[in-house]
């Protein structure tokens, strides 16, 4: 949901692509210089980042706004370690998931950055 303005277009950058590819319609195979190569790498890196972000934010939304708010009454039918399940998500479970989401992002991003050679080590 957040950053939705960027997810719709294939590379997340919208109409200013032409800015990067002045003369981009010429037969560029084999004439890629280092700079355009790097631009391609960066674009692929950014796309991988957006995909990861999207997935994690869906989980973020489902546990907090889904389990804890929209479907709380339905989940409250079930007992969970002495809690009603919906109430547990709202006052305990979501917070644990939030912590886990950040650390999953930390680890996955490190891998993505290494893969594209853009990490900061």
């Amino acid at each position, binding site marked *: 949901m*957040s*950053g939705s*303005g*960027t997810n719709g277009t294939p590379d*997340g*950058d*919208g*109409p*200013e692509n032409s*800015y990067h590819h002045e003369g981009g319609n010429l037969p560029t195979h084999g004439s890629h210089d280092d700079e355009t190569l790097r631009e391609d790498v*960066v674009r692929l*890196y*950014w796309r991988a*980042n957006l995909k990861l*972000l999207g997935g*994690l*934010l869906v989980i*973020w939304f489902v546990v*907090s*706004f889904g389990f*804890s*708010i*929209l479907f*709380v009454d339905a989940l*409250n039918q079930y007992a*969970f*370690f*002495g*809690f*009603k399940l919906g*109430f*547990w998500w*709202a*006052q*305990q479970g*979501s*917070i*644990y998931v*939030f*912590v886990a*989401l*950040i*650390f999953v*992002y*930390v680890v996955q*991003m*490190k891998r993505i*950055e290494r893969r594209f*050679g*853009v*990490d*900061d*080590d």
Partner: protein
Amino acid sequence: MSTAMLTYLFVGASFALYIGIAIWSRAGTTKEFYVAGGGVHPIANGMATAADWMSAASFISMAGIIAFLGYDGSVYLLGWTGGYVLLALLLAPYLRKFGQFTVPDFIGERYYSKAARIVAVICLIFISFTYVAGQMRGVGIVFSRFLEVDITTGVIVGMAVVFVYAVLGGMKGITYTQVAQYCVLIFAYMVPAIFISLLITGNPVPQLGLGATVADGSGLSVLAKLDKTLLDLGFSPYTEGSKATIDIFAITMALMVGTAGLPHVIVRFFTVPKVSDARVSAGYALIFIALLYTTAPAVAAFARLNFIETINNTAYSEAPGWFKNWEDIGLIGWVDKNEDGIIQYAAGAAFQGSPSYTGADGENGERVLTNAQTDSSNEVYADRDIFVLANPEIASLPGWVIALVAAGGLAAALSTAAGLLLVVSTSISHDLLKKTLMPGITDRQELFYARIAAAVAIGVAGYLGINPPGFVAQVVAFAFGLAAASLFPAILMGIFVKRMNKEGAIAGMLTGLLFTFAYIVFFKFVSPELNSSENWLFGISPEGIGSIGMVLNFLVAFSVSRMTSAPPAHVQDLVDDIRVPSGAGVAHQH
């Protein structure tokens, strides 16, 4: 040793520690003053962020609010933790890569506009002072209850301590005192929670104790017993909400997004060495925060249960000492409606408004009230703010635990106040003076102005603490609503939408800001009598309206930016640059 002596000892020792750290970590350059030199370890920054974030509201008020609201209190738990996911995933790493000093810095450079920078400075100052006023009230409550000095003296002592470490040390001093303050406050929060969990359920882990069986032979779990007790007294059950789902949704969204957009939290991520450190540091911060935030609902349920069992149907003459102590400072009131000398607690307000006393004592020794009585059979008024502070006394815990809680409450209030005052002073010295009005000043002069601005900001905060405007509680919704509706969308689009230009961003910020501001002012100040769900837009209360302001901000920003020209090439290059982690220097001069 008496509890009062222990409290002086604990509070005195913690203050001495903070000042010692301040002297050890004095700032010599603007970079040290603004971002602690950019070399803070991610775990230390995580602790500092946790202390920065967890204010008097989190430490003192939140469990009390949840105790009264039950399920509906979840908005604070979800909102004030879920925002860190947004911060870690969407903002912190990119702002760290940008590598400058303040939030208006980013908005001013990204939107190549002094006007955008000034709008951001105005939002920041408004948000921060709203927040600071609440911290100083917290300092006042702790001092007046536990150290038996008046609020004015308490606030002046607190100001003096903040003055030493914020003005001398800037961000560097604040960072390391916040690490110490986190340790003090989390210890002070956990110790009584563990004791009370053991007393009530026999389980030492409060998070599990909340779901455990009450150790009174009834065989009921804590929450089941609380639901039953409250139903018997005419309340609605603890685990079920009474607010509309759409309002809960909107409030949670506004608090989450607002949390991610709070400038004093964002700048903490400018202090770590690398982009990846900003991410991991946000993760540590949320662990440290989650420790308190998953304990708070347990404290809330235990406190509500304990309060009812200790007070209801107890003769006033036999009421415990804490009841009278809090009555003495005006946060508890009792009116003997059926004149039987026994305290009856039930649903509904005992009387209208907060207590105002005649000064005389009643038949049973209680302070006589002038408030108009209501029809309900409830005889007790209890301010929500007392629950955490009174909890150790309600559970008859030893004196040193009570002293610890006092030191913890002060640590929470002072650490947040210092963080807020720092962003106010840097936005004045850096964004207003250096970047807008007086571009010719040297680094030394800028540092001097930063210190002056910090000193003035502390003075204003202290004034607000001693003479709290009556509307402090009313305007807390402002801080989150405005951050959600103005700063967060502008920063987010600045990173993820390269086509976003200054026209779009400024129009969006102003729309979000004015809409949210007008809605809150209308229902809180202009026509408070209309402040009920049938008059609200889509049934959303002023507390949740920031989420609509945010949506409006996005819509206006996108529409306007489509109709105006793309940002200049150097700004598009800047966006490309902040998206890639490699090559981030330490925060730099510019």
